[in-house]
């Protein structure tokens, strides 16, 4: 699963730490997601999409192999 977290974060002009605080995880977890090393749970994905004010599919998208 790919994601646009880094882009959306740049649009909203917030740091990894600020996003982490808003969704209740560590900055390391946000970094792992941005590097596609960690696939978040549905709950965390929904929380992140809500922070950006966008539908889930605009922030997270399936890849061919998924």
């Amino acid at each position, binding site marked *: 699963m790919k994601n646009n977290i880094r882009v959306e974060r740049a649009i909203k002009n917030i740091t990894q730490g600020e996003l982490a605080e808003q969704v209740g995880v560590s900055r390391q977890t946000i970094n792992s997601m941005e590097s596609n090393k960690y696939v978040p*749970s549905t*709950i965390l994905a929904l929380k992140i999409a809500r922070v950006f004010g966008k539908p889930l599919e605009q922030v997270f998208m399936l890849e061919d192999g998924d």
Partner: protein
Amino acid sequence: MKPHFLFPYWFRYLGWGLVIAHVPISIIGRFNGMTNPADNPTAGTALFSGQHLFFMGTSLLMAFGLFLVAFAKERIEDEQIWHVRLESLRWAIYVNYLVLIISLIFINDTGHLLYLNLWVPLIFFIIRFRWVIFRINRSARLEG
């Protein structure tokens, strides 16, 4: 995510304290003839003999210490940590059973097998868990 059945963060220090405390106590005991009952079956067969109690006490001190270190919460216990914790537990069980099976086949010594089983899964879990967290932190430091 609400972490259940984990000890508070500071318990890890208590755990390391117990593990470290067990080392000099065991060494002093060993110099005074307190060995693993499996090493010296004639002296250590009696249940709750001095030797048995000493061995039980030091083993429990170490195992309880490792248990606290392994299952203390992280500073921020989020779902990625939970994921790493479960993965590390799975690997610890694999390694433990691999070691147990190999030992059962090649070593005819059940006394030490129990002792091995006491600390192998916890030690392997702690090493694997800390190593993955170290890598996650390093990656966040370099990329963040």
